């Protein structure tokens, strides 16, 4: 075979491997909203739709840490956010209406609110292996009208091309969560 053919085969293998490793992130950014006006934001308690009762509580501080790492926005303390939640009679697992988003924005003096929902969290069977996995969605709502300006749904697991090839443990649930949050935020910043 000619060297050119070998190159094509190698390229095909490489693309297949990359496709296998690619994070599954679907996102939306509102085309008519300029995010430049957002300086201060709050992260509200995440919804938990998974069977793990602490999944949302674990994911929210990871999201907060990753959001701070972007150095794009100032974030109000989640303690103050929870107090404002309580004063408005909101529960952690209730989706926010636009009116509630506006009220929260006024109470916390923020221009945007980040929400999140953990849809799947824990171990997942992939072929013959068990890997840690997470599926979650995140949104950013602006507090003038309560409109959603960004949404991302991300699904990640602890498997990798090299792990499939050579074996090894799955990445920890914590690492998988961190990567998922990072992938989601990369679609915004």
């Amino acid at each position, binding site marked *: 075979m000619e060297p050119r053919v070998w190159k094509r085969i190698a390229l095909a293998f490489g693309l297949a491997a990359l496709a296998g490793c690619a994070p599954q992130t679907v996102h939306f950014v509102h085309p008519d909203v300029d995010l430049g006006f957002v300086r*201060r934001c709050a992260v509200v308690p995440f919804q938990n739709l998974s*069977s*793990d*009762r*602490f*999944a949302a*509580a*674990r994911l929210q*501080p*990871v999201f*907060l*840490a990753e959001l*701070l790492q972007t*150095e794009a926005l*100032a*974030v*109000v*303390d*989640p*303690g*103050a956010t*929870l*107090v*404002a939640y309580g004063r408005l009679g909101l529960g952690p697992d209730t989706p926010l209406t636009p009116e509630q988003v506006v009220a929260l924005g006024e109470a916390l003096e923020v221009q945007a609110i980040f929400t999140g929902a953990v849809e799947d969290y*824990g171990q997942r069977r992939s072929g013959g292996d068990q890997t840690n996995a997470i599926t979650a969605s995140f949104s950013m709502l602006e507090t003038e009208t309560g409109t959603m300006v960004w949404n991302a749904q991300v699904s990640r697991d602890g498997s990798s091309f090299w792990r499939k090839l050579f074996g090894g443990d799955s990445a*920890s*649930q*914590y*690492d998988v969560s*961190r990567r998922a949050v990072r992938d989601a935020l990369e679609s915004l910043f």
Partner: protein
Amino acid sequence: MRRPSRNPFLSRTGAAAAVLALLPCLTVAGPAVAQDAAPDGVGRTCVLLFMAGAGYGSGVADLADLRALGEQELAGALARSGDAPLPADATLDLQRRFRVRDGRLLTPLFLAGLDSAGAQRLLIVHLYVGRDGIELAGRTLRAATGLVESAASDACALGGDAWRIDFATACRRLVAALAAATRPRTGEPVAPLAVHPLGFDAATAQIATQCLLEAVLADTVRAVLDPAVLGGALAAEGIDPRRPDRSGLELLAGSFGAPEATMVEMITRDPDLIVQATDDDAPSSGPASWETVRSFSLHLRAVDTGTGLVTAAFDVDQDNRPAAGWFGNVESNTPRRLIAAAMHRLWDASRQPGKVR
């Protein structure tokens, strides 16, 4: 003429019995002398001893006896190191008057009461009584300022005939370690709040708070405020110490001069585990949860008390699997060691240059 042979076991048992018989006399004598010899004008030290996770499985110690022995030994060790402990009845009176049931919340009223009773320092010790051992966690703090002077931990076995001696020795070691760890501290104070647990009981959270204090004190020369004093001040104003709002942060800034508050959450990684909070003094029939800690994650955030904004956030994940040593040896970890290791990693991460915003 043949001399009668001595039985070494009997002689050792006799000696141990004699020491055990004399021990209460010795321990009572120490503090009594020190209380009488307390110099006027020099503040005394109030000794507060609390028990957590108690009542399980030991079968060796009467808990009231253990508490009394601990208080005597701590007061005696303080007296021997030159401090003057507050008399036990005065301490009990203060505890009853201000309803101090555990070392987690120390209200401003209680601290003022200490001052009026002539106590300027507090020695707070938590005993975690387990299946076959006792863990001691202690800290000393200034009553007037709420600043921690030192924090240290120790442990001893609970079993056999000599457990009283082991326990007494551990109490003395703890007081010595606390005295050795005291060093001058300056600058704006660090304000760590008590660790907020999710899926863990109050005793585990208390251990985690102690580990946080030890990590902070070991790392910095800045003054460190006591989490129980901060929690008590917030609670006295009707603010939830676990999640202070803007007014709570302003209180920390105004009353204690803290530029930032440090908040740590400890969340279980076990999806099925939930531990109901129980009265620490109540006996329990099951294993004490602080002895069987599960994998967990720690989440730290630093909050600016002036603006209410999060200035830094860090996490660490901690597995509870035994560490594999050389030649296939398995090194088991106690929950305290696991939590302490994770807390040190967390605090180190939060101090990395370039990461703090």
